[in-house]
C-alpha cells in the first residue's frame, strides 16, 4: 500500500508539473511583458533625465500638435540663431547654446550604410559639455573644425573605426568625408537606443543640415541661485509667438512620455498573445481537474458518505486550484523576469541597445501575475469542482472503472446549433465583407459550438478511426478516445484555439501578400522605384535632381510623408509632384480629376472622403506639426492608394513649405522610351554610387520586398503564438499520462495476453494522434474560415484579395499529427513499462 501511495505521489508530481506549466507559460508571458516595458520605461526616464542634466531651460518652436514621433522625427521649425543672443541676455542665464539636428547616415569602411534595424540615423551639433548632461567622450575630444566628426562609441566599435580614421557620412544634401576625432557615450550606454549619431561643431552642423543662421533649439543653464521654472518664465516673456520655453525636467518628461506611449502599444500586443496562451492553459487546467475529480469519485463519495457536505467538497477542490494557481503565478512571475532579461539581450543582439538599469518589478506586475495565475486556474476548476459536489455517496460502493461518457442529446444539439450559427455568420461575413466585429463574434460562437459539441466530435473522430485491420492499434486507441470523449475533446480544443489563431494569421498574411502584389501590378505605372535601404529614413533630395538631369529618364516623381492632422484626425499625409504623377502611378481616380491637382489642392482616398464627409470641391484643414493649419481644396478622390500607402496626397511645394525634412520616402521613375528596363536599373544604380542608402527597385523587387516584410511579421507573430501551441501540447501529454495511469490494469492485461511493448506504445501514440488531429482539423478549418472572413473585413487596410495558403495549412496538419506522436513518447513509454504482474494482481 505504501508503495502504491508513493507511486501515486510521483504520478501526481508529474501531473502537478504539467498543470502548473500550463498556466505558468501564460503568466510568465504577462509578467515578462510588464517587467520588460516597466524596465524600459524606467531606463528611458533615467536616460532622458541624464541627457537633460545641466540644461535648465530649453527654447524651441512650439509644434502645432505633438505628432507621433515616428512620422516626423520630432522635427520642429528651426528658429533664428539671433534668438540665442536674445536668450543669453535674459538675467539669470549662465549659458545659452543653440543646437541643430538632422539626418546623417554613417558609412562603414566598405561604404555600406550603418543602419541598425529601425533606429534613427542622425547628426547633431555638439558643443558645451556643461550643457550636455551624461553625454561623455569615451575617446578623443569634440569636433571643432568643418572636417571633423565625433560618432557614438557603439557605431565606432562595430564598424571598427579608430580616432583619425576617415569616415563618410551621407546627408540630405549629399555625401562628405570627415576625420574621426572623438567617440561618444551616453551615461553607461554607448548609443542612444541603437541610433547612430554623428556630432559636429555648430557651424558645420548648420551648413550640413541646411540650417545656416538657424537653430532647432536653445539649451540654457541658469546661474547659481536661479530656479529653472523662474528662468523659464523670464525667458518665455521675451519670446515671440510660436516659440516656447520648457524646463529641462519638462523636456525629459515629455520625451519619456512619448516613449511610454509607443511602448504601450507594444505591451498591449504582447498581452494579447499572453491572453491566448492563458486561454489555452485554462483548457488544460479545466481538463486536468475534470480528470482529477473523475479519478477521485470514489474518494469523494466516501467523504460524502461519512458526512462531508457539498460545500466542503467544493472548497476542497477549489483550494487545490488555489494552490496550483498561486504556485503557477509565483513561478510565472519569476520566469517572466528572466524572460524580460532574455528579450533585452535578444534586442541587443539585433542592434537595439536598451539603456541599462535594474529590472523593474512593480507591485502591479506581482499582483497581475498572481491574480492571473489564480483566476485562470480557479475559473477553469469551477466546473469540475461543481461536478465533484454532484457525486452521490452511493458511488463509494460501486466499481471505480471510469464510466463511459454518454453523449447528452441536448448537448450535441446545442453544440450543433452554435456551430451552425457561427459558421453561417462567418460565411455571411465573407460574402458581405468589411465586418470585423461580426467576424470576431462569429468565430467565438463557432468556437463555443466546438466546446459544446466537443465530446460528440471526439466520438465521431473515434468512430472514423475504429475500423480497418483488427490487429491495428487504431481500434483500441479509438475506443479510448471514445470512452473519455469529454476529456479528449477538451484536450483537442486547447490545440484548436492555438491553431485557429495561427491559421487565421497565416491566411491573413497570405491574403496580404497577394494584395501587395495586386497593388503593385494594378497601381504602379513606373519602371523603377527608388527607396531608402533597410529601415532608412529617406532618400536625399539630391537623388531626384540627379535623375532629372539624365537622358534615360522620362519622369521623376518624389513621394514624401509626414504625420499631420486632417480635419482634426491624425493621419499620414503624403506629397508628390503633380507633374508626371499620372504617368508613374494609377491612383484610381473616382471623382474629380488630376488636372486640377497642384498647390493648394489635396487628393483624398474615397474611404477617408467618406469618413470626413467631404467631396470634390470641398475644403479640408490640414494641420502640420511644425507650421499649423492650412486650408486645401479636394481636387479628386482615389481608390488605389495601397501602393504608396496614402490616404491624402498633397502637391510637393505645399509639403515643402510646411515640413523641414526634405527626405523622399520614395522616388518613382519612368525610363525614357526605348530604354531597356534592366539596363536602366543598372545604369541608375551605378549613377547613385554616392548614395549607398538608396535601393533601385523594379516593380517586382517592390512586391518581393513588401511580401518578405509580411513574411517576417508572420514569422514573429507565429513564433509568439507557438507558445500557446506548446501549452496545448503539454495538455496532450498531461491527458495521456493521466489516462495511462488510470489504465494501468488494462495495459498490464494487454501485455499479459501478448501485447508487445511496441503495441502498447502504439495504442497510446495513436490515441494522441487522434486527439491532435481532432484539434488540428477543427483549428485549421475554423482558422481558415475566420482568416478569410478577417481578410475580407480588413479591405480598408489594404487586404484587397483573399488567398488561402493550402500548402502551409497542409503542413500544419502534418505537424499537428507529428506533435501528437511526440507528445505521446513519454506517456507511451510509461505505458509500455507497466509491470504486468502488479497490474493483474487483484488487490
Amino acid at each position, binding site marked *: 500500500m505504501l508503495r502504491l501511495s508513493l507511486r501515486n505521489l510521483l504520478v501526481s508530481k508529474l501531473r502537478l508539473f504539467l498543470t502548473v506549466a500550463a498556466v505558468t507559460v501564460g503568466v510568465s508571458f504577462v509578467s515578462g511583458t510588464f517587467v520588460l516595458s516597466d524596465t524600459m520605461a524606467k531606463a528611458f526616464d533615467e536616460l532622458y533625465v541624464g541627457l537633460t542634466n545641466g540644461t535648465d531651460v530649453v527654447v524651441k518652436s512650439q509644434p502645432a500638435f505633438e505628432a507621433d514621433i515616428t512620422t516626423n522625427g520630432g522635427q520642429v521649425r528651426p528658429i533664428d540663431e539671433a534668438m540665442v543672443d536674445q536668450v543669453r541676455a535674459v538675467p539669470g542665464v549662465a549659458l545659452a547654446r543653440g543646437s541643430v539636428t538632422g539626418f546623417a547616415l554613417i558609412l562603414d569602411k566598405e561604404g555600406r550604410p550603418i543602419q541598425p534595424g529601425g533606429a534613427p540615423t542622425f547628426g547633431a551639433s555638439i558643443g558645451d559639455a556643461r550643457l550636455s548632461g551624461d553625454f561623455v567622450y569615451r575617446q578623443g575630444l569634440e569636433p571643432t573644425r568643418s572636417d571633423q566628426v565625433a560618432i557614438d562609441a557603439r557605431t565606432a566599435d562595430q564598424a571598427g573605426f579608430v580616432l583619425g580614421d576617415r569616415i563618410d557620412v551621407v546627408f540630405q544634401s549629399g555625401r562628405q568625408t570627415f576625420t574621426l576625432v572623438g567617440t561618444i557615450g551616453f551615461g553607461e550606454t554607448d548609443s542612444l537606443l541603437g541610433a547612430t549619431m554623428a556630432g559636429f561643431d555648430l557651424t558645420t552642423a548648420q551648413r550640413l543640415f541646411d540650417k545656416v543662421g538657424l537653430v532647432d533649439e536653445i539649451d540654457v543653464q541658469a546661474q547659481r541661485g536661479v530656479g529653472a521654472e523662474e528662468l523659464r518664465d523670464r525667458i518665455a516673456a521675451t519670446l515671440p509667438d510660436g516659440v516656447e520655453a520648457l524646463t529641462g525636467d519638462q523636456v525629459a518628461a515629455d520625451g519619456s512620455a512619448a516613449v511610454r506611449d509607443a511602448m504601450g502599444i507594444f505591451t498591449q500586443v504582447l498581452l494579447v498573445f499572453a491572453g491566448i496562451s492563458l486561454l489555452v492553459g485554462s483548457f488544460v487546467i479545466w481538463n486536468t481537474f475534470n480528470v482529477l475529480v473523475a479519478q477521485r469519485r470514489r474518494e469523494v463519495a466516501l467523504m460524502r458518505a461519512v458526512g462531508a457536505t457539498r460545500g466542503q467538497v467544493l472548497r476542497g477542490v477549489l483550494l487545490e486550484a488555489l494552490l496550483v494557481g498561486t504556485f503557477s503565478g509565483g513561478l510565472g512571475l519569476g520566469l517572466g523576469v528572466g524572460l524580460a532579461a532574455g528579450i533585452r539581450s535578444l534586442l541587443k543582439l539585433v542592434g537595439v541597445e536598451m539603456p541599462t538599469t535594474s529590472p523593474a518589478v512593480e507591485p502591479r506586475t506581482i499582483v497581475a501575475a498572481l491574480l492571473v495565475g489564480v483566476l485562470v486556474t480557479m475559473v477553469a476548476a469551477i466546473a469540475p469542482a461543481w461536478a465533484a459536489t454532484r457525486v452521490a455517496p452511493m458511488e463509494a460502493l460501486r466499481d471505480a*472503472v471510469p464510466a*463511459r461518457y454518454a453523449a447528452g442529446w441536448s448537448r450535441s444539439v446545442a453544440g450543433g446549433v452554435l456551430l451552425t450559427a457561427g459558421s453561417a455568420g462567418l460565411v455571411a461575413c465573407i460574402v458581405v465583407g468589411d465586418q470585423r466585429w461580426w467576424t470576431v463574434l462569429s468565430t467565438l460562437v463557432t468556437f463555443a459550438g466546438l466546446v459544446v459539441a466537443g465530446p460528440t466530435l471526439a466520438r465521431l473522430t473515434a468512430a472514423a478511426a475504429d475500423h480497418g*485491420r*483488427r*490487429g491495428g492499434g487504431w*481500434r*483500441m486507441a479509438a*475506443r*479510448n478516445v*471514445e*470512452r473519455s470523449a469529454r476529456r479528449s475533446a477538451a484536450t483537442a480544443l486547447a490545440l484548436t484555439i492555438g491553431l485557429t489563431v495561427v491559421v487565421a494569421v497565416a491566411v491573413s498574411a497570405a491574403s496580404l501578400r497577394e494584395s501587395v502584389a495586386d497593388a503593385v501590378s494594378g497601381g504602379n505605372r513606373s519602371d523603377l522605384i527608388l527607396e531608402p535601404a533597410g529601415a532608412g529614413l529617406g532618400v536625399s533630395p539630391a537623388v531626384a535632381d540627379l535623375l532629372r538631369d539624365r537622358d534615360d529618364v522620362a519622369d521623376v516623381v518624389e513621394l514624401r510623408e509626414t504625420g499631420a492632422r486632417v480635419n482634426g484626425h491624425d493621419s499620414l499625409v503624403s506629397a508628390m509632384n503633380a507633374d508626371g504623377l499620372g504617368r508613374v502611378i494609377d491612383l484610381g481616380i473616382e471623382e474629380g480629376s488630376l488636372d486640377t491637382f497642384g498647390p493648394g489642392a489635396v487628393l483624398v482616398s474615397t474611404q477617408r472622403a467618406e469618413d470626413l464627409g467631404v467631396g470634390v470641391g470641398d475644403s479640408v484643414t490640414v494641420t502640420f506639426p511644425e507650421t499649423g493649419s492650412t486650408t486645401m481644396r479636394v481636387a479628386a478622390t482615389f481608390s488605389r492608394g495601397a501602393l504608396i500607402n496614402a490616404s491624402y496626397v498633397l502637391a510637393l511645394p505645399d509639403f515643402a513649405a510646411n515640413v523641414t525634412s526634405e527626405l523622399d520616402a520614395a522616388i518613382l521613375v519612368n525610363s525614357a522610351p526605348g530604354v531597356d528596363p534592366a539596363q536602366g536599373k543598372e545604369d541608375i544604380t551605378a549613377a547613385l554610387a554616392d548614395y549607398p542608402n538608396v535601393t533601385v527597385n523594379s516593380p517586382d523587387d517592390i512586391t518581393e520586398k513588401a511580401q518578405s516584410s509580411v513574411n517576417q511579421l508572420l514569422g514573429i507573430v507565429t513564433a509568439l503564438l507557438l507558445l500557446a501551441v506548446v501549452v496545448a501540447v503539454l495538455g496532450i501529454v498531461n491527458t495521456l499520462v493521466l489516462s495511462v495511469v488510470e489504465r494501468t*490494469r*488494462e495495459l498490464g*492485461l*494487454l*501485455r*499479459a*495476453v*501478448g*501485447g*508487445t*511493448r511496441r*503495441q502498447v506504445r502504439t495504442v497510446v501514440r495513436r490515441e494522441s494522434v487522434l486527439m491532435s488531429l481532432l484539434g488540428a482539423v477543427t483549428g485549421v478549418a475554423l482558422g481558415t474560415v475566420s482568416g478569410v472572413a478577417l481578410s475580407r473585413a480588413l479591405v480598408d487596410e489594404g487586404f484587397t484579395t483573399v488567398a488561402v495558403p493550402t500548402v502551409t495549412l497542409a503542413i500544419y496538419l502534418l505537424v499537428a499529427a507529428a506533435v501528437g506522436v511526440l507528445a505521446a513518447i513519454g506517456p507511451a513509454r510509461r505505458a509500455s513499462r507497466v509491470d*504486468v*504482474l502488479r497490474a*493483474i494482481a*487483484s488487490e
Partner: protein
Amino acid sequence: MTTPGLRQRSAHTDEEQGRVRAVAASARGACKVYGAGETAVAALDDVTLDLPAGRFTAIMGPSGSGKSTLMHCLAGLDTLTSGQVLIGGTDLASLSDKERTILRRDRLGFVFQAFNLLPTLTAEENITLPVDLAGHAPEHEWFGTVVDTLNLRDRLRHRPSELSGGQQQRVAVARALITRPDVVFADEPTGALDRKAGVELLRFLRSVVDDLGQTVVMVTHDPGAAAYADRVVFLVDGGIVEELTEPTRERVLEIMGRLGD
C-alpha cells in the same frame, strides 16, 4: 460437443508417445526467491512438475504456498531465480521479453481471478484480442467452436460491463482458447464468482478439456473446484508435497486436512 479432428490429434500423440501423454509444459528444479539476504523469501523451492497435454490439472495449497508464483513462472509472466520452465520444449529463460510476450500471445492462455477483459472492447473483440495482436484473422471454425462450447453466441456484441461475472469469466476462457494454446492457465478463476456461476464455469473448463482436447492448469483453494480436475498437485511452502489423480472432493479435503491448511 466433440470435434473429431482434435480427438484424433490427442489420440495420435498418445500412439506416438506410446501410452505416455505429451508434456505441454514443465518445470525443472524451479526456484523463485523474493528479496535478498535476511528478508529473502523462497516462494518456490525446487519445484519439478510435468503438465501432460489434454489434461486438467489443479494446483492447491494454503495461502502463500506459492501457487500464483508457480503459475506466473510457468506462464512466462515472471522469471525464475533458478531452474527451468519448458513450454512445448522451449526454455523460457532463453527468451527475450519480446519473445516471451509473443509466446504468451500465440501458445498460452490465461484466466485471472478478475479483471480479465478490456472494458472498451466487445466480448467478441476481447476473445479475438490475441489473434488481433498477432495480426492474423481468427480461424472462423475454431472461433465458432469455442464460442459455442462456452455458450457465448448471443453475448458477442456486449461490452464487459453488460455481462455478468460468470459470462465475463467465460469470455476470458474463450479468449484464452482462441489461439489453440499449448496450455491455458487459470488463477482462481471462480474466486470472484458466486457458487452457481463458479460451478458452471468449472463445467465449461471440464468440457474445454474433454471436448476440445485443450490443456488446462487451474490454481484453486476450493476442494470442490479441484475435484473437477484430472489431477491435483499440492504445494506447501513453495514445494510439491502430494499428488492426487482422479480426485474427489472428499479425498482432496482429507489431504488438505493432513497438510494442515
